[in-house]
């Protein structure tokens, strides 16, 4: 038993070794096979015409000529039938052509030179690079020569020795056919291996290409903020869409972050170039912008410093950028361009126009480049649209046409930034866009007296908060005395959240409702902790109690909530707005 298995194993090993040496066959792609088959079939049709002529020339009757050559058109017709399998059609041409050889030898009276036709046909058949017709050819020669040599030696051979021993000479001829087969197999195997190597190389190329693209896209996405959130009173939405095809991903970025002053920084940039390199340069520029902005520099300073850094970095390419600092309390913005397309301003009445401001040099061109800023005020209801040139410039459309198309789309777009982004992308950008596209829309809300905001837990936001609450109080019709006192109470409540909620809490919520009373709710997750007391501290809560009619503090977890109400007498001097029910 064990012996038997060993033998089997040896057999398998031999088979494997042999199969490695031999070509696999049958792998020709459909297109290449069709091309070769057409050529070989045409050759067969040529024989269908040439053989009768040869027969007539040799003095045979027309009937004889037609009957003897009939194998050629019959097999050629079979080979041309698309209904038959590839194998069957190959067999038809192979056997047809070999039969033509046999007929020619016969018609020539066994002329030895006519046997060369067999050799030529074997080489022709090897073009199929398949085993079946190949082996059939060897078998055909052996059997045909043997049988016909035995029956009628004169129809196959023309020398006495062969006529006497037809099978021996059939063997000799088969050996030569086998030899030319071996030569063809070697040739065929080399061809096959080269073709397979070429395919493997091509596949590897596609894999690498896809890997590169996906790495660039992953890097790109990881550098964009997961979610952009506006400061209170503003809504922001952003989109990034990679280019339709090719390696042209990476390089576009947008960013939004809150500065220690409570202002908001917005960035739209585009590194000229694509792929992982562009994405990594973009990452460096993005961090540089953040660092300089958080450092407290003004917008022109930030761009100037980033440009100097970009020149130092020796990026090997340039980048364009729009940078702006937005004061959420007033809606005022300081906008600086560095070679980037101008932002669009959509006013509340529906007008849309590119912001007029100096273009500035792209980043990384000259360390001495000077930048200027444009100050504008975003009115309540107005929006600002930042974008990269992928949105307005395509191969088919120059940038000016693209910009006016974008303006028109912005006029027709829904006002909410999320919806506006989707609308602009669907209207303006097309699948022909060869560049990636980034888009950011910021809109200033029209606020009534009621408010509901999530605020970052930073002391710097308190002033913005007082501005917003002050506006709300004025719209609610509170007198100046009432406004001031409620403002202090709200500010104290918010300061308490900032001071006492844990480190894990990074924002808090402020909700204001207005009726006969002014109702304030300040909340954050978690339990508020008492911070180590200081002598002069602890005045916040007494102030709140003294300034409001009712103050309750419900301590969590899950959340801690301060609720305060004060009835509005609305006597004394008033704000300008009337209450909005």
């Amino acid at each position, binding site marked *: 038993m064990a012996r038997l298995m060993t033998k089997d194993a040896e057999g398998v090993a031999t088979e494997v070794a042999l199969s490695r040496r031999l070509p696999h066959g049958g792998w020709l792609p459909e297109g290449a096979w069709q091309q070769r088959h057409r050529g070989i079939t045409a050759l067969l049709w040529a024989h269908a015409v040439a053989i009768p002529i040869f027969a007539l020339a040799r003095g045979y009757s027309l009937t004889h000529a037609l009957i003897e050559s009939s194998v050629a058109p019959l097999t050629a017709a079979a080979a041309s039938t698309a209904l038959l399998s590839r194998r069957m059609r190959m067999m038809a041409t192979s056997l047809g052509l070999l039969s033509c050889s046999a007929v020619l030898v016969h018609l020539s009276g066994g002329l030895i030179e006519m046997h060369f036709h067999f050799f030529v046909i074997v080489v022709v058949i090897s073009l199929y690079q398949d085993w079946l017709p190949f082996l059939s050819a060897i078998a055909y020669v052996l059997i045909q020569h043997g049988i016909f040599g035995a029956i009628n030696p004169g129809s196959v051979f023309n020398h006495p020795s062969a006529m006497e021993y037809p099978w021996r000479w059939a063997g000799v001829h088969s050996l030569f056919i086998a030899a030319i087969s071996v030569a063809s197999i070697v040739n065929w195997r080399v061809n096959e291996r080269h073709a397979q190597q070429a395919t493997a190389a091509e596949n590897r190329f596609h894999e690498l290409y896809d890997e590169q693209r996906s790495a660039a896209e992953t890097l790109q996405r990881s550098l964009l903020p997961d979610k952009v959130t506006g400061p209170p009173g503003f809504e922001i939405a952003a989109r990034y869409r990679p280019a339709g095809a090719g390696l042209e991903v990476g390089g576009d970025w947008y960013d939004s972050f809150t500065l*220690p*002053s*409570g202002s908001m920084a917005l960035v739209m940039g585009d590194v000229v170039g694509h792929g992982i390199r562009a994405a990594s340069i973009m990452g460096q520029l993005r961090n540089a912008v953040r660092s300089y902005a958080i450092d407290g520099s003004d917008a022109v300073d930030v761009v100037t410093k980033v440009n100097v850094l970009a020149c130092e970095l020796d990026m090997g390419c340039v980048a364009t950028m729009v940078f702006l600092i937005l004061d959420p309390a007033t809606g005022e913005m300081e906008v600086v361009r560095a070679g980037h397309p101008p932002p669009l301003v959509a006013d509340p009445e529906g007008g849309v126009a590119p912001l007029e401001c100096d273009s500035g040099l792209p980043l990384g061109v000259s360390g001495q480049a000077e930048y200027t800023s444009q100050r504008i005020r975003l009115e309540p209801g107005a929006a600002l649209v930042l974008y990269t040139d992928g949105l307005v410039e395509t191969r088919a459309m120059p940038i000016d046409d693209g910009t006016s198309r974008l303006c028109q789309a912005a006029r027709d777009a829904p006002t909410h930034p999320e919806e506006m982004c989707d609308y602009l992308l669907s209207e303006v950008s097309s699948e022909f866009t060869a560049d990636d596209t980034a888009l950011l829309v910021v809109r200033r809300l029209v606020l009534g007296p009621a408010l509901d905001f999530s605020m970052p837990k930073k*002391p*710097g936001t*308190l*002033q913005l908060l*007082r501005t917003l609450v002050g506006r709300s109080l004025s719209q609610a019709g509170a007198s100046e*005395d009432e406004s*001031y*006192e409620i*403002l*202090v109470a709200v*500010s*104290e409540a918010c*300061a308490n959240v*900032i*001071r006492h909620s844990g480190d894990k809490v990074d924002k808090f919520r402020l909700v204001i409702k207005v009726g006969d009373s002014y109702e304030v709710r300040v909340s954050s997750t978690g339990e508020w902790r008492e911070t180590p007391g*200081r*002598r*002069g*501290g*602890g*005045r*916040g809560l*007494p*102030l709140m109690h*003294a*300034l409001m009619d009712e103050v309750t503090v419900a301590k969590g977890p899950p959340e801690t909530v301060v609720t305060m109400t004060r009835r509005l007498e609305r006597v004394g001097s008033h704000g300008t707005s009337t209450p909005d029910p």
Partner: protein
Amino acid sequence: MTSIEIDLQEDAEVVVATVTGEIDMSNASVLSERLATPALNSVVGIVVDLSDVRYLDSAGMAELFDTTIAIAGRGQSMALVIPAESRLRRLFEISGVEKVAPISSTVEAARALILESAGP
């Protein structure tokens, strides 16, 4: 960011600190830093003029309270100037800062209070 400016005028007897802007927890510490350190031992006290302060919250009051206690340790006193019509008045009354630092309506009155407390 909430902005604050403190201007110090010093003569032989008192330092007059004129504060303008808004004060909340984001910038209140500036008060004690600027008020407690520059006062020379030779002066009798500090007048803190809050007439041009648009907003001041409990964090600001806590700083004023602490500074008053701190300079009292050096034998100096502090007086605040808040005009009678200012809304800050009510807040200071509620919080009790006036118990350690007297409040006057004018710089002159505050200066007189400091000199008086220093004795003849």
